[in-house]
Protein backbone atom coordinates (compact mmCIF):
# COMPACT_ATOMS: atom_id res chain seq x y z
CA UNK A 1 0.00 0.00 0.00
CA UNK A 2 1.37 3.29 -1.02
CA UNK A 3 1.97 6.09 1.38
CA UNK A 4 -1.13 8.12 1.87
CA UNK A 5 -1.20 11.75 0.83
CA UNK A 6 -3.39 14.55 2.05
CA UNK A 7 -6.54 15.72 0.28
CA UNK A 8 -4.84 19.01 -0.39
CA UNK A 9 -1.91 17.26 -1.96
CA UNK A 10 -4.20 15.18 -4.18
CA UNK A 11 -6.09 18.26 -5.22
CA UNK A 12 -2.88 20.09 -5.93
CA UNK A 13 -1.73 17.21 -8.13
CA UNK A 14 -5.05 17.08 -9.96
CA UNK A 15 -4.89 20.83 -10.54
CA UNK A 16 -1.31 20.51 -11.76
CA UNK A 17 -2.24 17.75 -14.16
CA UNK A 18 -5.50 19.08 -15.47
CA UNK A 19 -5.09 22.83 -15.79
CA UNK A 20 -2.09 22.83 -18.19
CA UNK A 21 -3.73 20.04 -20.18
CA UNK A 22 -6.94 22.11 -20.67
CA UNK A 23 -5.47 25.60 -20.68
CA UNK A 24 -6.95 26.48 -24.03
CA UNK A 25 -10.09 24.63 -25.09
CA UNK A 26 -13.09 25.34 -27.22
CA UNK A 27 -16.24 23.63 -26.02
CA UNK A 28 -19.69 23.63 -27.53
CA UNK A 29 -22.73 23.07 -25.38
CA UNK A 30 -25.94 24.50 -24.07
CA UNK A 31 -26.24 27.04 -21.29
CA UNK A 32 -28.20 25.71 -18.34
CA UNK A 33 -28.95 26.70 -14.79
CA UNK A 34 -28.50 30.34 -15.78
CA UNK A 35 -29.52 32.60 -12.92
CA UNK A 36 -28.53 35.95 -14.33
CA UNK A 37 -25.48 37.97 -13.52
CA UNK A 38 -24.30 37.51 -9.95
CA UNK A 39 -24.03 40.70 -7.92
CA UNK A 40 -20.29 40.33 -8.17
CA UNK A 41 -20.71 40.98 -11.90
CA UNK A 42 -19.81 37.45 -12.92
CA UNK A 43 -21.95 34.67 -14.29
CA UNK A 44 -22.00 31.18 -12.78
CA UNK A 45 -23.95 28.60 -14.72
CA UNK A 46 -23.53 25.25 -16.42
CA UNK A 47 -22.60 24.17 -19.90
CA UNK A 48 -24.15 20.86 -20.81
CA UNK A 49 -25.00 18.41 -23.53
CA UNK A 50 -26.96 15.14 -23.48
CA UNK A 51 -24.36 13.23 -21.55
CA UNK A 52 -22.59 15.62 -19.23
CA UNK A 53 -22.32 19.05 -17.76
CA UNK A 54 -19.62 21.31 -16.47
CA UNK A 55 -19.66 24.40 -14.35
CA UNK A 56 -19.12 27.51 -16.42
CA UNK A 57 -17.74 30.78 -15.13
CA UNK A 58 -17.88 33.97 -17.17
CA UNK A 59 -16.13 36.87 -15.51
CA UNK A 60 -17.67 40.28 -15.69
CA UNK A 61 -14.87 41.57 -17.89
CA UNK A 62 -15.62 38.89 -20.47
CA UNK A 63 -19.33 39.47 -20.11
CA UNK A 64 -19.06 43.18 -20.88
CA UNK A 65 -17.72 42.36 -24.33
CA UNK A 66 -20.82 40.34 -25.16
CA UNK A 67 -23.66 42.18 -26.76
CA UNK A 68 -26.24 39.43 -26.56
CA UNK A 69 -27.86 38.04 -23.49
CA UNK A 70 -27.28 34.59 -22.10
CA UNK A 71 -30.17 32.35 -21.35
CA UNK A 72 -30.93 28.71 -20.69
CA UNK A 73 -30.93 26.54 -23.77
CA UNK A 74 -28.69 28.91 -25.73
CA UNK A 75 -26.14 26.93 -27.70
CA UNK A 76 -22.73 28.48 -27.44
CA UNK A 77 -19.11 27.77 -28.11
CA UNK A 78 -16.90 28.67 -25.19
CA UNK A 79 -13.21 29.19 -25.50
CA UNK A 80 -11.37 29.22 -22.23
CA UNK A 81 -9.53 27.11 -19.74
CA UNK A 82 -10.21 24.60 -17.08
CA UNK A 83 -10.02 25.79 -13.50
CA UNK A 84 -9.77 23.44 -10.53
CA UNK A 85 -11.12 24.87 -7.30
CA UNK A 86 -9.42 22.68 -4.74
CA UNK A 87 -11.28 24.05 -1.73
CA UNK A 88 -14.54 22.58 -2.99
CA UNK A 89 -13.19 19.79 -5.14
CA UNK A 90 -14.78 21.28 -8.23
CA UNK A 91 -13.58 21.97 -11.67
CA UNK A 92 -15.04 24.62 -13.93
CA UNK A 93 -14.66 26.02 -17.38
CA UNK A 94 -13.64 29.68 -17.32
CA UNK A 95 -14.71 31.41 -20.49
CA UNK A 96 -12.55 33.81 -22.44
CA UNK A 97 -15.06 34.17 -25.26
CA UNK A 98 -18.67 33.17 -25.67
CA UNK A 99 -19.98 32.75 -29.20
CA UNK A 100 -23.54 31.81 -29.94
CA UNK A 101 -23.79 28.87 -32.27
CA UNK A 102 -25.37 29.26 -35.68
CA UNK A 103 -26.24 32.93 -35.89
CA UNK A 104 -23.47 35.34 -35.10
CA UNK A 105 -23.23 37.12 -31.81
CA UNK A 106 -24.32 40.44 -33.25
CA UNK A 107 -27.19 38.83 -35.04
CA UNK A 108 -28.38 37.25 -31.86
CA UNK A 109 -28.03 40.47 -29.89
CA UNK A 110 -29.97 42.24 -32.60
CA UNK A 111 -32.72 39.66 -32.49
CA UNK A 112 -32.99 39.73 -28.75
CA UNK A 113 -33.21 43.48 -28.45
CA UNK A 114 -35.43 43.65 -31.46
CA UNK A 115 -37.93 41.33 -29.81
CA UNK A 116 -37.84 43.21 -26.56
CA UNK A 117 -38.28 46.68 -28.04
CA UNK A 118 -40.96 45.42 -30.37
CA UNK A 119 -42.89 44.01 -27.44
CA UNK A 120 -42.62 47.42 -25.79
CA UNK A 121 -44.12 49.07 -28.85
CA UNK A 122 -41.09 51.10 -29.94
CA UNK A 123 -41.57 50.08 -33.56
CA UNK A 124 -45.34 50.63 -33.72
CA UNK A 125 -46.40 52.26 -36.94
CA UNK A 126 -49.11 54.11 -35.04
CA UNK A 127 -46.62 56.16 -33.04
CA UNK A 128 -44.64 57.33 -36.03
CA UNK A 129 -45.08 61.04 -36.56
CA UNK A 130 -45.65 62.83 -39.81
CA UNK A 131 -42.62 64.59 -41.13
CA UNK A 132 -42.95 68.32 -41.74
CA UNK A 133 -43.54 68.93 -45.42
CA UNK A 134 -41.46 72.08 -45.57
CA UNK A 135 -38.84 71.94 -42.82
CA UNK A 136 -36.94 75.17 -42.30
CA UNK A 137 -34.28 73.91 -39.94
CA UNK A 138 -32.93 70.38 -39.78
CA UNK A 139 -30.58 68.85 -37.21
CA UNK A 140 -28.10 66.35 -38.61
CA UNK A 141 -26.67 64.00 -35.99
CA UNK A 142 -23.69 62.30 -37.58
CA UNK A 143 -19.94 62.30 -37.88
CA UNK A 144 -18.68 65.71 -39.05
CA UNK A 145 -16.22 63.91 -41.29
CA UNK A 146 -16.95 61.25 -43.82
CA UNK A 147 -19.20 60.93 -46.79
CA UNK A 148 -22.57 60.88 -45.02
CA UNK A 149 -22.50 64.48 -43.83
CA UNK A 150 -21.28 65.69 -47.22
CA UNK A 151 -23.96 63.71 -49.05
CA UNK A 152 -26.66 65.18 -46.84
CA UNK A 153 -25.41 68.75 -47.21
CA UNK A 154 -24.90 68.51 -50.96
CA UNK A 155 -28.25 66.92 -51.59
CA UNK A 156 -30.20 69.25 -49.31
CA UNK A 157 -28.63 72.41 -50.73
CA UNK A 158 -29.06 71.26 -54.30
CA UNK A 159 -32.77 70.69 -53.77
CA UNK A 160 -33.56 73.80 -51.85
CA UNK A 161 -31.56 76.87 -50.87
CA UNK A 162 -34.22 77.74 -48.38
CA UNK A 163 -33.15 75.40 -45.60
CA UNK A 164 -30.83 75.49 -42.61
CA UNK A 165 -28.78 72.48 -41.56
CA UNK A 166 -27.37 72.22 -38.07
CA UNK A 167 -24.67 69.57 -38.04
CA UNK A 168 -24.34 67.98 -34.61
CA UNK A 169 -21.02 66.13 -34.53
CA UNK A 170 -20.98 62.72 -32.87
CA UNK A 171 -18.93 59.58 -32.92
CA UNK A 172 -20.80 57.06 -35.01
CA UNK A 173 -18.81 53.93 -34.32
CA UNK A 174 -16.70 52.36 -31.67
CA UNK A 175 -16.78 52.55 -27.93
CA UNK A 176 -19.29 55.06 -26.59
CA UNK A 177 -20.73 56.00 -29.97
CA UNK A 178 -24.26 54.90 -29.09
CA UNK A 179 -24.27 56.95 -25.91
CA UNK A 180 -23.01 60.01 -27.79
CA UNK A 181 -25.70 59.72 -30.42
CA UNK A 182 -28.35 59.24 -27.76
CA UNK A 183 -27.06 62.20 -25.78
CA UNK A 184 -27.03 64.45 -28.83
CA UNK A 185 -30.62 63.53 -29.65
CA UNK A 186 -31.73 64.26 -26.10
CA UNK A 187 -29.84 67.52 -25.99
CA UNK A 188 -31.41 68.73 -29.23
CA UNK A 189 -34.83 68.03 -27.80
CA UNK A 190 -33.97 69.75 -24.55
CA UNK A 191 -32.92 72.99 -26.25
CA UNK A 192 -35.33 72.91 -29.15
CA UNK A 193 -37.39 75.85 -27.86
CA UNK A 194 -34.32 77.80 -28.75
CA UNK A 195 -33.20 75.88 -31.84
CA UNK A 196 -36.59 75.37 -33.48
CA UNK A 197 -35.55 72.29 -35.41
CA UNK A 198 -38.36 70.80 -37.48
CA UNK A 199 -36.63 67.52 -38.08
CA UNK A 200 -33.57 65.46 -37.20
CA UNK A 201 -31.60 63.21 -39.52
CA UNK A 202 -29.48 60.71 -37.59
CA UNK A 203 -27.16 58.38 -39.40
CA UNK A 204 -23.87 57.50 -40.97
CA UNK A 205 -22.46 56.05 -44.12
CA UNK A 206 -22.01 52.41 -44.95
CA UNK A 207 -19.73 50.04 -43.10
CA UNK A 208 -19.52 46.59 -41.62
CA UNK A 209 -22.22 45.34 -39.32
CA UNK A 210 -19.88 46.15 -36.43
CA UNK A 211 -19.35 49.68 -37.75
CA UNK A 212 -23.08 50.29 -37.82
CA UNK A 213 -23.61 48.71 -34.46
CA UNK A 214 -24.11 51.91 -32.48
CA UNK A 215 -27.40 52.30 -34.33
CA UNK A 216 -28.47 48.92 -33.04
CA UNK A 217 -27.99 49.82 -29.44
CA UNK A 218 -30.73 50.44 -26.99
CA UNK A 219 -29.75 53.97 -25.86
CA UNK A 220 -30.06 55.19 -29.45
CA UNK A 221 -33.37 53.37 -29.91
CA UNK A 222 -34.78 54.94 -26.75
CA UNK A 223 -33.51 58.43 -27.56
CA UNK A 224 -35.15 58.27 -30.97
CA UNK A 225 -38.33 56.94 -29.42
CA UNK A 226 -38.41 59.77 -26.89
CA UNK A 227 -37.54 62.53 -29.34
CA UNK A 228 -40.31 65.07 -29.71
CA UNK A 229 -38.69 66.21 -32.94
CA UNK A 230 -39.41 63.76 -35.77
CA UNK A 231 -36.39 61.64 -36.66
CA UNK A 232 -35.31 60.23 -40.01
CA UNK A 233 -32.74 57.46 -39.71
CA UNK A 234 -30.16 57.05 -42.43
CA UNK A 235 -27.74 54.29 -41.63
CA UNK A 236 -25.39 52.68 -44.11
CA UNK A 237 -26.62 51.34 -47.38
CA UNK A 238 -29.96 50.25 -48.71
CA UNK A 239 -29.62 46.72 -47.28
CA UNK A 240 -28.69 47.70 -43.75
CA UNK A 241 -31.60 47.85 -41.38
CA UNK A 242 -30.81 48.81 -37.83
CA UNK A 243 -32.87 49.09 -34.69
CA UNK A 244 -32.64 52.86 -35.10
CA UNK A 245 -34.31 52.47 -38.49
CA UNK A 246 -37.17 50.57 -36.93
CA UNK A 247 -37.78 53.16 -34.21
CA UNK A 248 -37.32 56.24 -36.40
CA UNK A 249 -40.34 58.02 -37.81
CA UNK A 250 -38.97 57.26 -41.22
CA UNK A 251 -36.13 55.10 -42.43
CA UNK A 252 -34.11 56.47 -45.30
CA UNK A 253 -32.06 53.84 -47.12
CA UNK A 254 -29.01 56.13 -47.32
CA UNK A 255 -27.95 59.58 -46.05
CA UNK A 256 -28.50 61.01 -49.53
CA UNK A 257 -32.01 59.59 -49.57
CA UNK A 258 -32.64 61.12 -46.14
CA UNK A 259 -31.88 64.57 -47.50
CA UNK A 260 -34.10 63.90 -50.50
CA UNK A 261 -36.97 62.86 -48.28
CA UNK A 262 -36.50 65.69 -45.82
CA UNK A 263 -36.01 68.62 -48.15
CA UNK A 264 -38.64 69.46 -50.77
CA UNK A 265 -37.37 70.55 -54.14
CA UNK A 266 -37.66 74.27 -54.69
CA UNK A 267 -38.86 73.67 -58.24
CA UNK A 268 -41.73 71.57 -56.94
CA UNK A 269 -42.70 74.31 -54.50
CA UNK A 270 -42.59 76.85 -57.30
CA UNK A 271 -44.80 74.70 -59.46
CA UNK A 272 -47.28 74.33 -56.65
CA UNK A 273 -47.41 78.11 -56.27
CA UNK A 274 -47.90 78.64 -59.98
CA UNK A 275 -50.77 76.20 -59.94
CA UNK A 276 -52.39 77.93 -56.98
CA UNK A 277 -51.99 81.21 -58.82
CA UNK A 278 -53.82 79.88 -61.84
CA UNK A 279 -56.56 78.25 -59.81
CA UNK A 280 -57.23 81.39 -57.80
CA UNK A 281 -57.71 83.45 -60.93
CA UNK A 282 -59.79 80.84 -62.62
CA UNK A 283 -62.06 80.44 -59.62
CA UNK A 284 -62.64 84.17 -59.31
CA UNK A 285 -63.37 84.46 -62.99
CA UNK A 286 -65.82 81.62 -62.80
CA UNK A 287 -67.61 83.20 -59.87
CA UNK A 288 -67.84 86.51 -61.71
CA UNK A 289 -69.25 84.78 -64.77
CA UNK A 290 -71.91 83.09 -62.72
CA UNK A 291 -72.86 86.48 -61.34
CA UNK A 292 -72.90 88.14 -64.72
CA UNK A 293 -75.32 85.50 -65.90
CA UNK A 294 -77.57 86.17 -62.96
CA UNK A 295 -77.55 89.93 -63.44
CA UNK A 296 -78.38 89.50 -67.09
CA UNK A 297 -81.34 87.39 -66.19
CA UNK A 298 -82.38 89.87 -63.57
CA UNK A 299 -82.08 92.80 -65.95
CA UNK A 300 -84.25 91.22 -68.54
CA UNK A 301 -86.88 90.27 -65.99
CA UNK A 302 -86.94 93.83 -64.74
CA UNK A 303 -87.60 95.21 -68.17
CA UNK A 304 -91.29 95.74 -67.50
CA UNK A 305 -91.36 96.64 -63.81
CA UNK A 306 -89.92 100.03 -62.97
CA UNK A 307 -86.41 98.94 -63.76
CA UNK A 308 -84.63 102.15 -63.08
CA UNK A 309 -84.70 101.93 -59.35
CA UNK A 310 -83.31 98.44 -59.44
CA UNK A 311 -80.87 99.30 -62.13
CA UNK A 312 -79.59 102.05 -59.94
CA UNK A 313 -79.05 99.64 -57.09
CA UNK A 314 -77.27 97.28 -59.39
CA UNK A 315 -75.24 100.16 -60.60
CA UNK A 316 -74.05 100.88 -57.10
CA UNK A 317 -73.32 97.24 -56.59
CA UNK A 318 -71.33 97.03 -59.77
CA UNK A 319 -69.47 100.20 -58.94
CA UNK A 320 -68.47 98.59 -55.69
CA UNK A 321 -67.39 95.38 -57.35
CA UNK A 322 -65.62 97.30 -60.03
CA UNK A 323 -63.59 99.04 -57.36
CA UNK A 324 -62.77 95.69 -55.84
CA UNK A 325 -61.66 94.33 -59.14
CA UNK A 326 -59.56 97.36 -59.91
CA UNK A 327 -57.89 96.82 -56.59
CA UNK A 328 -57.24 93.23 -57.55
CA UNK A 329 -55.76 94.21 -60.84
CA UNK A 330 -53.41 96.55 -59.01
CA UNK A 331 -52.49 93.78 -56.63
CA UNK A 332 -51.75 91.13 -59.13
CA UNK A 333 -49.20 88.60 -58.10
CA UNK A 334 -47.43 87.49 -61.17
CA UNK A 335 -47.90 87.32 -64.84
CA UNK A 336 -50.96 85.45 -65.91
CA UNK A 337 -53.10 88.19 -64.52
CA UNK A 338 -54.57 88.79 -67.93
CA UNK A 339 -57.34 86.70 -66.48
CA UNK A 340 -58.17 89.43 -64.04
CA UNK A 341 -57.95 92.03 -66.73
CA UNK A 342 -60.34 90.15 -68.95
CA UNK A 343 -62.61 89.64 -66.01
CA UNK A 344 -62.60 93.37 -65.43
CA UNK A 345 -63.49 93.92 -69.06
CA UNK A 346 -66.40 91.55 -68.77
CA UNK A 347 -67.70 93.16 -65.64
CA UNK A 348 -67.59 96.46 -67.43
CA UNK A 349 -70.05 94.96 -69.85
CA UNK A 350 -72.47 94.93 -66.96
CA UNK A 351 -72.20 98.63 -66.24
CA UNK A 352 -75.33 100.81 -66.65
CA UNK A 353 -74.01 102.15 -69.92
CA UNK A 354 -74.12 98.69 -71.36
CA UNK A 355 -77.61 98.22 -69.97
CA UNK A 356 -78.70 101.37 -71.76
CA UNK A 357 -77.22 99.98 -74.90
CA UNK A 358 -79.56 97.05 -74.62
CA UNK A 359 -82.51 99.48 -74.99
CA UNK A 360 -83.13 100.90 -71.55
CA UNK A 361 -83.17 104.61 -70.91
CA UNK A 362 -82.97 106.95 -67.97
CA UNK A 363 -85.12 110.03 -67.62
CA UNK A 364 -84.17 113.15 -65.63
CA UNK A 365 -86.33 116.09 -64.63
CA UNK A 366 -85.33 119.68 -65.35
CA UNK A 367 -83.21 119.75 -62.18
CA UNK A 368 -81.27 116.70 -63.25
CA UNK A 369 -83.00 114.33 -60.81
CA UNK A 370 -83.74 110.84 -62.06
CA UNK A 371 -87.45 110.21 -62.50
CA UNK A 372 -88.54 106.98 -60.92
CA UNK A 373 -92.30 107.40 -60.69
CA UNK A 374 -94.70 108.61 -63.36
CA UNK A 375 -96.44 110.83 -60.77
CA UNK A 376 -93.22 112.83 -60.46
CA UNK A 377 -93.74 114.10 -64.00
CA UNK A 378 -96.24 116.93 -64.40
CA UNK A 379 -97.86 117.92 -67.64
CA UNK A 380 -95.80 120.51 -69.44
CA UNK A 381 -92.61 119.68 -67.57
CA UNK A 382 -89.38 119.49 -69.52
CA UNK A 383 -87.53 116.21 -69.15
CA UNK A 384 -84.26 114.85 -70.44
CA UNK A 385 -83.81 111.21 -71.53
CA UNK A 386 -80.50 109.41 -71.84
CA UNK A 387 -80.29 106.50 -74.23
CA UNK A 388 -77.57 104.04 -74.98
CA UNK A 389 -76.18 106.69 -77.26
CA UNK A 390 -76.98 110.35 -76.76
CA UNK A 391 -79.78 112.26 -75.04
CA UNK A 392 -82.83 114.22 -76.01
CA UNK A 393 -85.22 116.67 -74.34
CA UNK A 394 -88.97 116.40 -74.40
CA UNK A 395 -92.09 117.82 -72.71
CA UNK A 396 -94.53 115.78 -70.64
CA UNK A 397 -98.06 115.70 -72.06
CA UNK A 398 -99.69 113.96 -69.14
CA UNK A 399 -99.98 110.63 -67.36
CA UNK A 400 -100.85 107.51 -69.27
CA UNK A 401 -104.25 106.47 -68.04
Amino acid at each position, binding site marked *: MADSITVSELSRQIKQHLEPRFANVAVTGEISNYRGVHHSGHVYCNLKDDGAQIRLIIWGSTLSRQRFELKDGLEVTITGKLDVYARRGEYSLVATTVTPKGTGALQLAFQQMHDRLQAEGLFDAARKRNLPQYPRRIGVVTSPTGAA*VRDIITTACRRNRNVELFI*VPVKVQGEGAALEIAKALRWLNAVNDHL*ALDLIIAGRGGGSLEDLWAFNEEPVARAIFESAIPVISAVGHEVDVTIADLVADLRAPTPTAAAEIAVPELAVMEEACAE*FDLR*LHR*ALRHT*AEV*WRGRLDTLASRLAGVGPLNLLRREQQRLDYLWEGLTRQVKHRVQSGNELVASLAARLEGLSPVAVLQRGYSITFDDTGKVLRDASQAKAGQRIRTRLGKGEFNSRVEGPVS
Partner: protein
Amino acid sequence: MARKNNPEITPPTGERFENLVASVEEALRALEGGELPLEDALKRYEEGVKALRKCYGILKQAEARVLLLTEQNGQAQTRPFDAEGETHKAPEENAGGKLF
Protein backbone atom coordinates in the same frame (compact mmCIF):
# COMPACT_ATOMS: atom_id res chain seq x y z
CA MET B 1 -17.38 82.22 -20.52
CA ALA B 2 -19.79 85.08 -20.70
CA ARG B 3 -23.18 84.09 -21.87
CA LYS B 4 -23.35 85.58 -25.27
CA ASN B 5 -26.17 85.88 -27.66
CA ASN B 6 -25.97 83.58 -30.56
CA PRO B 7 -27.93 85.27 -33.30
CA GLU B 8 -27.38 82.31 -35.60
CA ILE B 9 -29.74 80.25 -33.52
CA THR B 10 -32.70 82.58 -33.26
CA PRO B 11 -35.72 80.68 -34.52
CA PRO B 12 -36.66 81.32 -38.13
CA THR B 13 -39.12 84.17 -38.44
CA GLY B 14 -42.08 84.67 -40.70
CA GLU B 15 -44.91 82.35 -41.48
CA ARG B 16 -44.34 78.71 -42.32
CA PHE B 17 -44.73 77.71 -45.94
CA GLU B 18 -47.16 74.95 -45.05
CA ASN B 19 -49.41 77.39 -43.17
CA LEU B 20 -49.44 79.77 -46.11
CA VAL B 21 -50.22 76.91 -48.46
CA ALA B 22 -53.06 75.93 -46.16
CA SER B 23 -54.45 79.51 -46.36
CA VAL B 24 -54.30 79.44 -50.14
CA GLU B 25 -55.99 76.07 -50.19
CA GLU B 26 -58.70 77.30 -47.88
CA ALA B 27 -59.38 80.29 -50.13
CA LEU B 28 -59.46 77.97 -53.11
CA ARG B 29 -61.86 75.58 -51.43
CA ALA B 30 -64.26 78.44 -50.78
CA LEU B 31 -63.86 79.91 -54.25
CA GLU B 32 -64.01 76.68 -56.17
CA GLY B 33 -66.79 75.32 -54.00
CA GLY B 34 -69.06 77.46 -56.14
CA GLU B 35 -71.65 79.85 -55.01
CA LEU B 36 -69.97 82.61 -53.08
CA PRO B 37 -71.47 86.07 -53.34
CA LEU B 38 -69.18 88.13 -55.53
CA GLU B 39 -68.04 90.32 -52.65
CA ASP B 40 -67.04 87.27 -50.61
CA ALA B 41 -65.40 85.73 -53.63
CA LEU B 42 -63.27 88.83 -54.03
CA LYS B 43 -62.40 88.78 -50.36
CA ARG B 44 -61.37 85.14 -50.54
CA TYR B 45 -59.43 85.77 -53.67
CA GLU B 46 -57.63 88.63 -52.02
CA GLU B 47 -56.74 86.42 -49.03
CA GLY B 48 -55.48 83.69 -51.32
CA VAL B 49 -53.37 86.09 -53.31
CA LYS B 50 -51.93 87.59 -50.15
CA ALA B 51 -50.84 84.21 -48.83
CA LEU B 52 -49.53 83.18 -52.20
CA ARG B 53 -47.46 86.33 -52.45
CA LYS B 54 -45.83 85.38 -49.14
CA CYS B 55 -45.15 81.91 -50.54
CA TYR B 56 -43.30 83.45 -53.44
CA GLY B 57 -41.40 85.61 -50.98
CA ILE B 58 -40.20 82.52 -49.12
CA LEU B 59 -39.14 80.82 -52.33
CA LYS B 60 -37.01 83.82 -53.19
CA GLN B 61 -35.26 83.74 -49.84
CA ALA B 62 -31.55 83.66 -49.46
CA GLU B 63 -28.92 81.01 -49.27
CA ALA B 64 -28.96 77.73 -47.43
CA ARG B 65 -26.98 77.78 -44.19
CA VAL B 66 -24.93 74.91 -42.85
CA LEU B 67 -23.72 75.32 -39.29
CA LEU B 68 -21.85 73.12 -36.87
CA LEU B 69 -23.86 72.96 -33.67
CA THR B 70 -22.18 72.04 -30.42
CA GLU B 71 -22.83 72.33 -26.73
CA GLN B 72 -20.61 74.49 -24.60
CA ASN B 73 -21.35 74.94 -20.92
CA GLY B 74 -24.88 73.89 -21.64
CA GLN B 75 -25.23 76.56 -24.34
CA ALA B 76 -25.76 75.84 -27.97
CA GLN B 77 -22.88 77.19 -30.04
CA THR B 78 -22.64 77.41 -33.77
CA ARG B 79 -19.99 78.09 -36.33
CA PRO B 80 -20.02 77.76 -40.09
CA PHE B 81 -19.57 74.17 -41.12
CA ASP B 82 -17.04 73.28 -43.74
CA ALA B 83 -17.16 69.63 -44.67
CA GLU B 84 -13.80 69.76 -46.43
CA GLY B 85 -12.15 71.50 -43.51
CA GLU B 86 -13.53 68.95 -41.09
CA THR B 87 -12.29 66.09 -43.19
CA HIS B 88 -8.78 67.41 -43.29
CA LYS B 89 -8.42 67.75 -39.56
CA ALA B 90 -6.71 65.12 -37.51
CA PRO B 91 -9.25 62.62 -36.24
CA GLU B 92 -8.63 63.57 -32.60
CA GLU B 93 -9.54 67.15 -33.33
CA ASN B 94 -12.95 66.45 -34.63
CA ALA B 95 -13.80 63.39 -32.63
CA GLY B 96 -17.38 63.89 -31.61
CA GLY B 97 -16.44 62.61 -28.21
CA LYS B 98 -15.12 65.96 -27.19
CA LEU B 99 -18.33 67.63 -28.09
CA PHE B 100 -20.67 65.10 -26.64
